[in-house]
């Protein structure tokens, strides 16, 4: 197998290549001194995008129009409620986690009920849902920042052999997601549904059940990410998920998952998450103003896509 063929088959290779290049350029600024610190920071923050990205990827795999815009609101609600419930007590960590997962399950169910019962495009159903969730978050504790339990805060901010714990969690989840996607029946089903919902139905795939599970999975991952992020940053804020709306979509598509559905890949999410964090760091490091920073970020994304593109697997 020639290297060229290898690249053809792996759309995610480009996001990793870009990541390495950007990393090198950034580290060069300090003559290499920043390499460890930068890598650690990148892994930490990439971890959060990876967790929401995986959920979003499952949803996007379901085919055109499938996208979950309620991710940021779910993160916020899960973060606020879990922290409020735990109320700085170490003994409540597990309860908080379960509450988060419960919130994810409910949100996912709500999303799919809207999509199914009202036959509205997922993009709009989840957008509407996100407004409602946001209101619940506001109503439940009015934006007050409650601190996470000490133990949980320590866990999310420390590392194991230099690798941040959150990155380890994200890695574990990625492996699980990979197995689910590549090896399980469920993975085949979502891919089939993404290519043709009707054909999937005629191949006796329980289409609605599978889609429901997928939306729930996405919301649970978002909730989990909210739980971790709130603990990591020392408290939940009402706007803490807003960045992850575009980010969760961007890491999926830049990572090489087909936007038209049916074809997805997990390594790409890591590549894209690291890449997006490092691009901003690089431009910050070199002291670009906000305007140029935005323009360059955009251009770099397009260049990476141009290099990687032109494959059918990308569509």
């Amino acid at each position, binding site marked *: 197998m020639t290297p060229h063929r290898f690249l053809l088959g792996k759309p995610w290779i480009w996001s990793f290549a870009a990541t390495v290049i950007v990393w090198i350029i950034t580290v060069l600024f300090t003559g290499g001194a920043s390499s460890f610190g930068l890598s650690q920071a990148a892994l930490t923050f990439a971890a959060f995008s990876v967790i929401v990205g995986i959920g979003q990827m499952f949803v996007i795999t379901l085919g055109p129009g499938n996208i979950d815009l309620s991710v940021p609101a779910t993160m916020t609600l899960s973060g606020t409620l879990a922290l409020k419930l735990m109320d700085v007590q170490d003994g409540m960590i597990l309860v908080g986690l379960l509450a988060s997962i419960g919130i994810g399950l409910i949100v996912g169910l709500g999303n799919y009920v809207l999509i199914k019962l009202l036959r509205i495009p997922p993009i709009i159903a989840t957008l509407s849902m996100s407004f409602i969730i946001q209101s619940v978050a506001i109503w439940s504790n009015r934006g007050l920042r409650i601190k996470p339990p000490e133990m949980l805060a320590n866990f999310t901010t420390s590392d194991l052999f230099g690798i941040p714990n959150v990155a380890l969690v994200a890695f574990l989840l990625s492996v699980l997601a990979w*197995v689910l996607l590549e*090896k*399980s*029946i*469920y993975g*085949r089903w979502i*891919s*089939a549904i993404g*290519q*043709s919902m*009707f*054909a*999937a*139905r*005629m*191949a*006796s*795939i*329980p*289409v*609605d*059940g599978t889609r*429901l599970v997928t939306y729930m999975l996405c919301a649970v991952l978002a909730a989990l990410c909210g739980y971790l992020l709130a603990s990591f940053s020392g408290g939940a804020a009402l706007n803490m998920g807003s960045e992850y709306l575009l980010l969760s979509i961007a890491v999926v598509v830049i990572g090489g998952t*087909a936007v038209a559905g*049916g*074809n997805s890949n997990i390594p790409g999410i890591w590549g894209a998450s690291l890449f997006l964090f490092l691009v901003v760091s690089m431009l910050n490091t070199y002291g670009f103003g906000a305007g140029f920073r935005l323009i360059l970020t955009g251009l770099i994304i397009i260049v990476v896509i141009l290099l990687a593109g032109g494959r059918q*697997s990308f569509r």
Partner: protein
Amino acid sequence: MTEVLKRDEVVAARGVRVTFGAVKALDGADLVIHSGECVGLVGHNGAGKSTIVNVINGGLTPHEGTITYGGQDERGISAARANGVRCVFQELSLCPNLTVTENARIMHPDLKGWNWRSGALALVEAHLQEIFPGHSIDGDSTVDDLSIAERQMVEIAISFAGTDKKPKLVILDEPTSSLDAGLAAQLMAYIRKFVSEGGSVLLISHILGEILSTSDRIVVMKDGRVTADRAAGEFSTRSLVEAMGNVVREQEWARAAATKTGEPVLSMPPRRGHGLAFEAYRGEMIGLAGLGGHGQTEALLDLYLDRNSNWWPTRRREIAFVAGDRSLNGTFPLWSILKNLSVASLGQLSTNRMVDRMREETLGESWKKRIEIRTPDMDNRILSLSGGNQQKVLFARALATTADIVLMDDPMRGVDIGTKQEVYDILRSEAANGRTFIWYSTEMDEIRLCDRVYVFREGAIMEELIGEDITEKNILAASFSEGAAA
């Protein structure tokens, strides 16, 4: 031969070679079409027919060989169109979201000006009327709202239409596969008329009767090469089948001795509140007949969807479906052939809901052999298969399941005659083992193979025919409304 040579050469492809990776789709094929003749093109699935069509209409550049239009060496879609070459592809080539008129606009770039709509409408209606007299297609209706047969008719009419200059060569790739017998006959009659007026037609079909009766000359392809090219009169059905590399089998078809034994495995009350109820028994082969688009597909869909949960995976599959409109509801285009084949049987191929690749591959290999899917590797993309071979994969998908009942929605579209005979045998033996088949077909020959036939008219079941009563005459009689008789 000499008098043929004197005529103008419309298109000539010589020594054409096309390869897709390891597959030699065309391996030095020659095809010359003169004005004023209808050339029939036959061959097994994957013989290269569609590929040579794509070369002639400029969509595919051959890796070797020459292609000339009226003696000139030119390349590309526009060159082909400029030389009067039109093509009706078997897969729907209309834009489903546009109206019939708008589709005509797209197919005829020279329909210009402010008033192109009325021009296009007049053009389509005139040709529809000429080719399919008595049709009921409205030029302003959206293609989506038309049945498959109507779409096919529209596409054919648009292709034969010409604004300033008439088309010189019209290529028809399996044009009758979704038309019922009446419409097919109308089309064949029109082809004869078109040819007699100096046009030429390249007709591809797996229905040999059509080819023999309509063509002036028949070209037989096999494995990317032309193996025979003779006047139609020199062929008979038997010699044609033999030229295609198949052995003609005697139609020894034993109907199941007793039908309707035991409890019905499947039943459905009368549709639309009138007509007969539907019942199927173990081991039966039931045909759904009638004119195209009279509710047979809907009946199949109802039967299927009723017994198939959309929310939970069914533990034991009791019903499977073979789609006819494969690009719309059959294949998963991003997947390999193997994944397409195994998708309905994943339950039995997995432990703990994880798919076992080994078992999956074994299943793929066995079905590849059993119905001869022509591909070097089951891991190739499904779209690399010829149309007929894709259809075989869909068949294998349903038969590989453990389902007791198999619903088939005109499943033999575009399947070559050799394969058909093999599939019939498989169906028969599966039925003998207790499987029930419910089979909608537009081909009379296939309907005659069934144990029992329900004839549909206007969405309801109007007649039940059993055993020897299943004749073309009886079916046709039941297909047309008694209103005409009464």
